[in-house]
Each structure stands twice: as structure tokens, then as C-alpha cells.
């Protein structure tokens, strides 16, 4: 009964438009007061403070800042040029270049919005000029931009690692194969579209010298994930230290090597990064307050028993999780959706013996779809704005792309080896 009251109160307040942090706290404090549960509120607010304090969370603003620096500093266009020399000759070549650029830039930024904005502002005008319908260009960017969320520096991975307690080293390797397979599926759709529509049958193949020159130009940006991820994987530095190195590296290449931004732009980007991260971290802290109440009142145990009564096997449970997250994702962005559901799903996943790292990849891959599921979504809006295309027209072009990503989501869900392969290879 308490579980139902908690969820109803929270969803009514949150859906009414009250910021999530206040919705979570109002629900927690309101239920304690109204039901006279007798918990001291000092404990609730101490858990809010301790929820935002851990050293690992410092990586969140730092990675956001590094992503912003690279997006503003000219890394995007060099990556696009490198991808063009490699894949521009294929049917639907420019669309294929877009997917590869998003994958590579995603490896640098870890942010779907930064990925879509940085790559979209470069390739969408080129695609439209080439004859692609603006709505297709926007649909492709809104989907390809989310590949960043499965790449090693993904912000949702970092948040999941914190909530679940799994190793960021393992998690950062687990999304790579799903991201590459998703990119391959999208490339398949792009080649089919390029051929079918006749708008892009491919340009001439680049010479090895052109490829080498483009690689040299993009090399500084492309080396960054190797340094950062290599450092984390080898245990040389922690994710937080890796984030600080990413910031310094991003500053050096944006200010001194590419020279596409000045010192005056640094502080506004820093402020924006810390503002954005504060909104995320305060929701993390407030979720901690509600989780505390859920734990002491045994709500999670009751919910777990109820779901175990319905889902008799692991695969039914994972299907239920995917459906619930997909529905939730149609109106909530990935990070808050993860923050709200992970504390509830994690004990259940453990009860069904799901590998916690694998579960993190499933949640992230599913919630990434939320970013472009019409009618609302972060990457959908960014890409629609750049392409100046309507959501209705974009939705029609999204159908084959979403079919591909949903198929990959099912494969990722039921083939756990995909998420374990690289970590087993490297960590043993």
C-alpha cells in the first residue's frame, strides 16, 4: 500500500511539472509527515548531502566540461572529415560518415546531446545539400547521437556505476560492442536509404594519403579516449582523475592546437557544466532520500516479491524491465529515468541473478532510445532544430532506424556475452 502511495504521489507531482528534485523531496517528506512514520527529517537531509558528496561523482561535471570543450573547440569537424575519407565512397556515404562520426565523437564526449549538436551542426547542412530529406538527416542524427551513451566515457554509465556499486572499469568496456553493433545496424539502414532514394550513391574513394592527412588532423581528438579509457582500464587512474585529465587535454587541444576557441569562452562553459551537473547530482541526492525511505519501510522487498510473483524467469523479468523503461522513456530523459528506476530494479535484477554490469548496459541502451522517441526527446529536438524539420516528418524516417535499434536492444538484453567480451579479454 505504501509503495503504491509513494509512486502515485511522486508521479502526480513530477508529471505536473514540479522539478524532479523537489518532487522527490516533497514525496519523501510528505509521506513521512502524513503517514506519521516518525523518521527524523535530519536523517533525510543528511542523506541528501551524502548523496552528492562522493569523490567519484566529481567526474560528472568534469566529463561534461571536457565534452563541451571538445564540441566547441573544433574536434567535431576533424572527426567528420576523417570519417568521410574512410566511408564516403559507400552508398549513402554521407549518412554512413555521420554514424561513424557520432560513434567516434561519442567516444570523446560521452554525451548524446553534445554528440548530436557537434556532429549535427556539421553534417546536417552537408546532407541536405547532397539531396537527403532534412527529416531523414534529423532522424539519423537524433539516433546516432545516442551512441555516445554506450561509449566508455558515458555519463549514464558513471551514474549507474555509482548507484549500483559496479566497477566503472568493467562498465566502461561493456558498452563498446553494443555501440559498434548499433552503429553497424544504422550504417545498414543508411546504405539502404542512400540506394533506394538515389540521393547519395557514394563519392570517389579517398587515397591513402588523404586518409592519413585526415587522421593526422583528427588524431589529437581521437587519441583522447585512448589515453582516458586506457588509463581507467589499466588502473593507472580513477574515473575522477581521468575526467580531470580529459578537461586539461580538452583545454590544450581546443585552445593551443586547434585554436578554435579563446580563453574567454572557458569560464562560461565551466559554469554551464557545473550547473548541469548540479541538477543531475541533486536528483541523485534526492533519489537517495526516497530510496532510504523505501529501504527502511521494506517497500523494495514487497515490490520484489510482487514482481517475482509475475515474472517467473530471468528473460520475462528483463522483458518487463525493457517495456517499463521504454514507456517511461517516452516522457522522461535517460538520466532522471535511470536515477528513479535503478534503485528499484537493482535488487530485483540481483534476485533474478542478472549480471549487474550487463543490467547497466541494458538500462542505458534502452533509455538512450528515449532521447529520440517522439513526441519528445533531447537529441530529437536538437537535430530537428538544426535540420529545421517537423517532428511528424522526422517520425516517418525514424521508423527503420528505431526498428534497428530496438532489435539491437533485444540482442543486447539476451546475449550477455556481448557486454562481457571486452572486459573478460582485458581484465581476465
Amino acid at each position, binding site marked *: 500500500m505504501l509503495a503504491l502511495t509513494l509512486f502515485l504521489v511522486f508521479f502526480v507531482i513530477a508529471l505536473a511539472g*514540479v*522539478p524532479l528534485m523537489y518532487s522527490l523531496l516533497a514525496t519523501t517528506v510528505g509521506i513521512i509527515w502524513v503517514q506519521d512514520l516518525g523518521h527524523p527529517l535530519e536523517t533525510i537531509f543528511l542523506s541528501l548531502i551524502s548523496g*552528492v*558528496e562522493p569523490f567519484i561523482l*566529481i567526474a560528472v561535471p568534469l566529463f561534461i566540461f571536457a565534452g563541451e570543450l571538445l564540441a566547441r573547440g573544433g574536434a567535431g569537424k576533424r572527426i567528420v572529415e576523417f570519417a568521410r575519407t574512410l566511408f564516403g565512397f559507400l552508398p549513402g556515404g554521407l549518412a554512413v560518415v555521420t554514424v561513424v562520426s557520432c560513434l567516434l565523437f561519442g567516444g570523446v564526449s560521452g554525451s548524446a546531446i553534445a554528440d548530436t549538436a557537434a556532429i549535427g551542426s556539421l553534417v546536417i547542412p552537408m546532407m541536405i545539400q547532397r539531396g537527403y530529406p532534412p527529416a531523414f538527416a534529423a532522424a539519423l542524427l537524433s539516433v546516432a547521437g545516442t551512441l555516445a551513451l554506450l561509449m566508455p566515457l558515458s555519463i549514464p554509465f558513471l551514474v549507474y556505476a555509482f548507484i549500483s556499486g559496479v566497477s566503472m572499469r568493467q562498465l566502461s568496456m561493456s558498452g563498446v560492442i553494443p555501440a559498434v553493433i548499433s552503429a553497424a545496424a544504422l550504417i545498414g539502414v543508411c546504405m539502404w536509404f542512400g540506394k533506394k532514394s538515389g540521393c547519395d550513391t557514394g563519392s570517389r574513394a579517398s587515397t591513402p594519403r588523404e586518409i592519413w592527412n585526415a587522421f593526422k588532423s583528427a588524431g589529437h581528438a581521437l587519441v583522447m579516449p585512448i589515453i582516458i579509457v586506457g588509463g581507467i582500464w589499466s588502473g593507472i587512474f580513477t574515473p575522477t582523475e581521468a575526467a580531470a585529465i580529459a578537461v586539461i587535454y580538452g583545454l590544450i587541444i581546443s585552445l593551443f592546437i586547434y585554436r578554435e576557441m579563446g580563453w574567454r569562452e572557458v569560464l*562560461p562553459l565551466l*559554469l554551464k557544466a557545473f*550547473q548541469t551537473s548540479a541538477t543531475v547530482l541533486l536528483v541523485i541526492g534526492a533519489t537517495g532520500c526516497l530510496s532510504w525511505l523505501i529501504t527502511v519501510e521494506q517497500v523494495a522487498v514487497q515490490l520484489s516479491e510482487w514482481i517475482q510473483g509475475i515474472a517467473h524467469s530471468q528473460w520475462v523479468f528483463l522483458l518487463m524491465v525493457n517495456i517499463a523503461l521504454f514507456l517511461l522513456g517516452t516522457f522522461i530523459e535517460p538520466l532522471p529515468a535511470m536515477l528513479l528506476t535503478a534503485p528499484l530494479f537493482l535488487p530485483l535484477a540481483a534476485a533474478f541473478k542478472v549480471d549487474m554490469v550487463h543490467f547497466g548496459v541494458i538500462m542505458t541502451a534502452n533509455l538512450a532510445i528515449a532521447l529520440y522517441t517522439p513526441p519528445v526527446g533531447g537529441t530529437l529536438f536538437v537535430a530537428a532544430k538544426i535540420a529545421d524539420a517537423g517532428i511528424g516528418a522526422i517520425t516517418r524516417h525514424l521508423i527503420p532506424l528505431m526498428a534497428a535499434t530496438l532489435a539491437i536492444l533485444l540482442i543486447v538484453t539476451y546475449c550477455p556475452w556481448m557486454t562481457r567480451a571486452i572486459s573478460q579479454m582485458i581484465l581476465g
Partner: protein
Amino acid sequence: MPLLPPGPPGPAPIRWLSIAVDCATAAIGTVMVALVFLNVMAHIFNQDIAWTTEFCEFMMVWVTFLGGASAARRGAHMTITEFIDKLTGTARKWGDAAIQVVALAVLVIMVWYGCVIVEANWGNVLTVLNWPMALQYLALPIGSGASFIFVAYDLVLILRGKSPEERYGA
């Protein structure tokens, strides 16, 4: 030319508070980047600067609550707006006002219990820095207090019939 982007327009006291919050957030952020990087350098040379971890956690609490206030000034907190955005005219005005009233109620509780927590922790000290824990916990009432002022001012603008674009800029 100012180093930081200005917040939305408002009367002088609100603007000054907004500038103070933004400057503090950016300053703490800069120190944190520098300290974490310094720590990496120290590791490379086999040195350990133990106090940096605790100091960064100390600042993390401050930068989060101040960053939250800075986001409140710009209406940038994570919100599900799909339903409220469907409302127009008077319904939208009263919808926005009701949301800010709920936010203000939560912020009052945060300031109140923040003060209670600070009061109770002057005697407890941080392990390495040896500073009173109350100094770290002070971020809760101060950040929430600044947020309260920004949200209250926003409520006044809503009641005067200002649209979200007029309140937060385009």
C-alpha cells in the same frame, strides 16, 4: 565584457545574488579541476596528497548546492514539462504558480533542517582537514536559501503574468 554569462534580467539585488552564486560556482569548479589534476600529477611522482580528496568532497557539496541555485535562477532544473506545456493563458499561469509554491515549500524545509544539521555539527570534525563538519553542511541552507529567493522572485513574475520566455530569456 563580463567573464561569466549574465543571468536572466531582474532587479539589482537579484542580479547581484545571481552573479555572486555564479562566481562562487565557477571559482569552486576551477579549484576542483586544478586539485584533481594536481592529485594525478602527485600520483605520477608517487606522492599522495591526502587532504585533496576530502577537500574536493567538501567543495563538491558546496558547488552542487550553489550550482542548483544557479540552475534555479535560469529555470534549468530537471523537469517533466510535457504536460504543463500543453496549458496556455491563465491555466498556464496558475499551473506555473502552483509548481513554484511546491518548490518554495520544499526549499523552506531544506533551509530549516539545513540549519538544524549545521547547528548540531559544529563539534564534529572532518577526518583529515579537521574542520567542523558544519562548514560543509552549511552549503545546504545557503544554497537552498539562494534558490528560495530566485524561486520566490520567479513566482512574483508569474503572478504578474510574465511568460517563461520573459522570465528566463529566450
